[in-house]
């Protein structure tokens, strides 16, 4: 009993940091509708800046002053990011901004590395709160008690700010109805900036205040990212009390998980999230998100047409050029081209569900990695020949997507995205922790193609046929009645349902289909590398595809392909440099700002302006 009480206290203390950071994320999302992936980076910056300040500001006063200053400093950094990176892209299609925030993550990672070095930093202990106190005989750090005590005040302060002040009224109005703020005569741009300041400052505070417990390191940003999204989603997007309850729930459960069921820790919070969302699709205290409530941002997508003779010719020429690669290039080039095609197919499969279906999946890697693992397991345990394994990969991934899709389909918007992320994470931890079967962290090796395809040249041709074939097939399905029904369900589910279309079922099947196509990419991948590791199931892998689809242009399939090819090539080129992240981050941000419709969409616009492409009537 005493132990349990102490454990609850530890959980509550951990919840403090989580709540501080998550409430900032929730505020930012609620008002600006921006899914800010860089929020974890703000948290990391808070920790490092706080650490540096504590080196120069002595004593108890210095400690707490450093925490506050770190918060303010990160708030200012948030404002800089908002003004320089996000303002130019507010008018871009929904969720496009998350690509920009992803670029910010990369930039901040390298800046932190440059400034503070690669070594982990041990946080200074808080003066005056160093020891422990015994509660029912169990040791509890004094600092934990301080954190537990502070959190309700923070919650109350925020709550007061939001519900009782004029600023708060505006923030709430903006959360519920963006247009209304304009009607109230408030400068929306500055309201957004203000909210960004507050939200980032919360993250910075969180980072600094946890220093005595966790210190600072360069992995903090990604490590907390998943947890704070989970907290915000469980609590209900935009709800502060919800975020607090969720933070407590997750932290306390986590402490128990660590003590009693250590193997559960990697998935625990995702399981909790999945359960909560299945029972309450908008989180514990969230408000129902009516689709389209916040207005479609950006131009509507344009009609698509089956490829005309010119496009077909272009595709044939491109294919011909690709087949020449092994003849004229090095084997190194063939390998690179193989990687690129596989990644393009993966991105194109995500585009199918995201672009045509309007369903943003944050967990598409589950099907890429899922397909890869199906193939690898079949080869390792059943001695399956490559040809059959390559067939089973999409079947397995498709089945997986069929099941996951069934569960996720009852949610929409960001909640849908988060549930897909949860399932991907579940799969990842399953693979990661089930060593005996999947090899765990060490992955599975020695999975090579059949003899007739050994060698990078012949495997390149297989990839070319299956990869490009897969992309063309995706394109064809987009033009088929099923693709149209999918777009109809996205455009107006009201009309679609009123004309006999079962929109949920169409989306569900599309999700399964996209999963199967990602599975082909995964199968090709595993034989091209000869091995597979859990990293292929990671969040970062899902995000890669997401970034690429947005960067290339959500509205066209070619966008996903162009984006995929560019990113894979770029990564290959620049990862040789030490500070490649900052380079890539800046490139991403610049592309996002210069090409808010994605590379392909913006290229078309420019073409129209220059008169190279026929312009469509009427669209501003």
């Amino acid at each position: 009993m005493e132990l349990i009480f102490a454990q609850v206290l530890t959980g509550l203390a951990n919840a403090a940091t989580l709540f501080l950071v998550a409430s900032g994320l929730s505020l930012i999302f609620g008002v600006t509708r921006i899914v800010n992936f860089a929020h974890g980076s703000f948290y990391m910056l808070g920790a490092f800046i706080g650490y540096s300040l504590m080196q120069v500001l002595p004593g108890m006063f210095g400690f707490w002053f450093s925490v506050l200053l770190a918060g303010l400093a990160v708030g200012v950094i948030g404002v800089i990011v908002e003004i320089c990176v996000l303002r130019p892209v507010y008018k871009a299609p929904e969720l496009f901004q998350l690509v920009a925030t992803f670029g910010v993550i990369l930039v901040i990672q390298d800046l932190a590395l440059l400034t503070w070095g690669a070594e982990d930093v041990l946080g200074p202990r808080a003066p005056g709160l160093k020891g422990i106190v015994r509660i029912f005989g169990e040791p509890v750090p004094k600092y934990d008690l301080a954190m537990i005590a502070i959190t309700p005040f923070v919650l109350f302060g925020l709550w007061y700010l939001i519900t009782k002040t004029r600023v708060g009224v505006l923030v709430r109005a903006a959360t519920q109805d963006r247009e209304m703020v304009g009607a109230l005569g408030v400068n929306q741009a500055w309201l957004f900036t203000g909210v960004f300041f507050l939200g980032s400052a919360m993250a910075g505070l969180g980072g600094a205040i946890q220093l005595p417990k966790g210190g600072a390191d360069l992995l903090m940003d990604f490590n907390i990212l998943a947890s704070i999204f989970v907290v915000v989603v469980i609590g209900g997007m935009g709800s502060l009390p919800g975020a607090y309850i969720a933070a407590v729930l997750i932290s306390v459960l986590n402490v128990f998980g660590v003590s009693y069921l250590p193997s559960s820790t990697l998935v625990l919070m995702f399981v909790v999230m999945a359960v909560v969302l299945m029972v309450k699709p908008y989180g514990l205290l969230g408000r129902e998100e009516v689709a389209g409530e916040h207005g479609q941002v950006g131009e509507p997508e344009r009609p698509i047409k089956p490829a005309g003779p010119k496009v077909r010719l272009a595709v044939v020429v491109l294919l011909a050029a690709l087949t020449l690669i092994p003849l004229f290039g090095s084997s190194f080039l063939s390998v690179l081209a193989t990687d690129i095609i596989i990644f393009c197919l993966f991105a194109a499969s995500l585009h199918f569900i995201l672009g045509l279906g309007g369903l943003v999946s944050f967990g598409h890697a589950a099907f890429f990695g899922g397909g890869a693992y199906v193939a690898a397991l079949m080869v390792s345990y059943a001695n399956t020949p490559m040809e059959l394994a390559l067939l089973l990969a999409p079947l397995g991934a498709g089945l997986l997507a069929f099941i996951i899709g069934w569960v996720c389909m009852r949610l929409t918007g960001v909640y849908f995205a988060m549930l897909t992320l949860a399932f991907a994470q579940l799969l990842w931890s399953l693979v990661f922790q089930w060593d005996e079967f999947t090899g765990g962290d060490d992955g599975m090796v020695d999975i090579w193609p059949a003899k007739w395809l050994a060698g990078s040249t012949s495997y390149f041709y297989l990839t070319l046929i299956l990869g490009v074939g897969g992309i063309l097939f995706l394109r064809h399905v987009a033009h088929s009645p099923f693709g149209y029904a999918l777009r109809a369900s996205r455009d107006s589910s009201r009309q679609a349902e009123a004309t006999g279309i079962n929109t949920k079922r169409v989306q569900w099947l599309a999700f399964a289909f996209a999963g199967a196509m990602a599975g082909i990419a995964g199968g090709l991948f595993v034989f091209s590398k000869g091995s597979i590791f859990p990293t292929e199931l990671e969040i970062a892998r899902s995000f890669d595809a997401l970034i690429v689809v947005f960067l290339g242009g959500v509205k066209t399939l070619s966008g996903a392909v162009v984006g995929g090819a560019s990113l894979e090539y770029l990564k290959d080129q620049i990862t040789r440099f030490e500070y490649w992240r900052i380079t890539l981050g800046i490139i991403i941000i610049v592309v996002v700002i210069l090409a808010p419709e994605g590379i392909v969409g913006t290229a078309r616009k420019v073409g129209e302006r220059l008169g190279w492409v026929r312009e469509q009537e009427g669209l501003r």
Partner: protein
Amino acid sequence: MTEPDAAVLDVRNLSKSFGGIRAVQDVNFSVKKGELLAMIGPNGAGKTTCFNMLMGQLPRTAGEVHLDGENITGLEPRTIWRKGVGRTFQITATYPSMTVIENVQMALMSHHKRIYSILPFATKLYHDEAMALLELVGMPEQAERHCAILAYGDLKRLELAIALGNGPKLLLMDEPTAGMAPTERTKLMQLTADIVREKNISVLFTEHDMDVVFAHAHRVMVLNRGELIANGSVNDIRNDSKVQEVYLGGGNLFSDDEHQHA
């Protein structure tokens, strides 16, 4: 259902409450075959709510709806559509990413149960039928235009073409002429009346423009605060004292106003 006066739609004791608000209270009426029936009433009277319950978009609080003698209460909109009920919306719902004709083709593909096929090109399916429907509503020359750039009145006509896609026996039209110029309104209602006659369809429509209602409706029902207060011929309604009261007592039935809400 062969006798001339048979009811296509039979609505019994239909009610809807939103929390404390009783939006529709105990409404009874039927729509006869080939009839152009108007449902009028001030803003917030409960017309759209009624439509939403008839088509299954909203669960009802109480009551039953029968289509050609079959109980369709509580069915999904898509099921009711397959049984032959088409609908247009007060706030138009179309597919902005498609061309005008593709919007109509989509309904035809659904009608022919082709939405799960992945082999043919969608644009090549039912092209001529879709064109015929667009001609019917008078917008064939706009077939290849991008739906997102249509004028509001054209969207309304497009919705009508979509709703006719499955050859319905009953059409529910929620303010079909909202957002149109007066001459356009008359034209559209004339067109609707022609379609009703030619295809032997029944139409239930709501409308705020009394000129349109009195010129085209075969019969008029008046809804006020969720209750049906009158039901009769155009002349009956004009002279009904209760209806007059609604008009004169602050109602806005005779004025030409357009409020947009779902």
